[in-house]
């Protein structure tokens, strides 16, 4: 069933990120419903791009819309400033937004070699939660994780569904380089680093699977709406996966 999203402006905030972008925030807490509105707004923006629209960046509960203020100002003869013009366009879109129909989601298994040199923060996450490292691994592989968004780095999935028992704060200062395939935890989120990059997450393991495929039409292995399951593998199995991929 396609249902119009109720007009709830007290829940929905539109705020500027400098003079070239506006963020539409559907609430403060992560929920499936907010995440679906994010998808719906992005689809709508791509169907009906306004003059000056550059691109939209979907996140958990928000969509950031990048635009060229000069083109906006030239295209609309309004007295308003570019950000107020774009805000008006977005308010109209949000008001008439319809949630997309639910499609069945794919489940993708990601093998992970936990701990050791691949997961230097596994012990920290265990101690922080007063657990044994094995318990952290059991809890991490037990859950099913919906993909809420791809962002931060090419193909990087932000996953929901992390057990409260294995939360961990971000590092106080990000590492300057994290190897590709690293699996991490930050707050109540978990994810995989597809390419080598700086980052602030606590690292618990590494996968041999490639999440970023620059030469594919769809450059990301995962997409918002997928379900991810992690599977614990040994170091030996990790090496075997790598060999098969090469």
């Amino acid at each position: 069933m396609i249902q119009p999203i109720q007009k709830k402006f007290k829940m929905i905030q539109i705020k500027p990120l400098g003079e070239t972008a506006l963020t539409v925030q559907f609430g403060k807490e992560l929920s499936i419903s907010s995440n679906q509105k994010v998808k719906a707004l992005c689809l709508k923006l791509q169907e009906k791009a306004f003059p000056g629209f550059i691109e939209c960046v979907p996140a958990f509960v928000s969509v950031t819309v990048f635009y060229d203020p000069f083109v906006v100002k030239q295209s609309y003869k309004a007295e308003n400033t570019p950000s107020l013009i774009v805000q008006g366009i977005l308010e109209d879109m949000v008001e008439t937004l319809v949630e997309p129909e639910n499609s069945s989601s794919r489940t993708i298994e990601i093998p992970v070699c936990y701990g050791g040199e691949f997961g230097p923060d596994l012990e920290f996450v265990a101690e922080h939660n007063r657990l044994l490292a094995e318990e952290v691994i059991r809890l991490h592989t037990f859950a099913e994780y919906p993909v809420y968004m791809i962002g931060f780095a090419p193909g990087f999935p932000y996953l929901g569904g992390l057990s409260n028992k294995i939360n961990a704060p971000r590092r106080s200062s990000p590492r300057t380089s994290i190897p590709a395939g690293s699996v991490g935890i930050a707050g109540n989120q978990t994810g995989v680093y597809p390419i080598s990059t700086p980052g602030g997450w606590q690292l618990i393991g590494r996968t041999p699977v490639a999440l970023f495929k620059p030469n594919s039409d769809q450059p990301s292995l995962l997409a918002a709406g997928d379900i991810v399951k992690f599977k614990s593998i040994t170091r030996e199995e990790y090496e075997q996966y790598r060999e098969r991929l090469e």
Partner: protein
Amino acid sequence: MSIQVIRPGLLATIQDLGRYGFQQYGVIVSGAMDMFSLRIANLLVGNEEGEAAIEVTLMGTTIQFKEDRVISITGGNLKPTIDEKPVPLWRPILVKENSVLSFTGCESGCRAYIAVAGGLTVPEVMDSKSTYLRGEIGGFKGRALQEGDMIFFAKENDDSIKLKKMLQAKLKGDFFAAADWYVPVEQYMSKKSLRVVKGPEFDLFSGKSQQQFFEQEFQITPQSDRMGYRLFGPSLQLKKSFELLSEAVANGTIQVPSDGNPIVLLADRQTTGGYPRIGQIAAVDLPIIAQLKPGDRVRFQEITLVQAEKLYIERETEISKIRTALLVKKTSFKTNG
């Protein structure tokens, strides 16, 4: 024909105005750090302003031209020389076949742009020629330039050919000839003050940190690159700690991890981030920070969103005027030659 890289120097990459439309897959924008200089460099040689050019960092880059071609060099003054003679910036230059261009030092700024009439023929990846170093895509084989690389030129347009003919008359046996006119740019290389609009999480910082952010000086640390500049100064703290849901960030977003040291996100920034964003550098001042280097000090000056928008529109109007003026210059060649 082509350019051959003799020495890559500290870092030289191919960049255009960036890769848009793929941030939803986590693919970053990249592009020139100093977009203003890139755009002017292209307009000077008769290209579209978004054509790819070579971004040279600090010093050491040396390239050889394999054909007579009109080029321009803009951005920081990294003391470019041909045949030991200094090459002037911000104007069309005709370089002769086999001439060698070297960047020998750092008089002002940090990044220079070399645009070539016709542009560079590297393949577009996801609609852009920009190099994304960490993703190993775009530019020249997805990497920084290396010794021996040959970068081919695209065909010059009629405007560029007219420019070439005009400058050929001035060569007189030298390795290069410079036009006697140039684009007078505002001297932004030496500015140390950046105009900033409050970021989405500004109000979550303590009163003291809000004040220090706009009053005190920050130093650019050596852990700074095209992705972002890490700053050192007063430690900025939140009123109370909390974890944010990751959200989009932009070129010039100033985020603050819990160690209190701000990070300015730049051309190779990630698409989204989870650290609180205290400020957003006005787009017109991004070329200033792009030209600052480790050790330099900066201050942040608060402006309103409306002021930032006004500055943006003024800058675009200014670039339109430069574009028109260059067009007039090109038409006048007809009468001259």
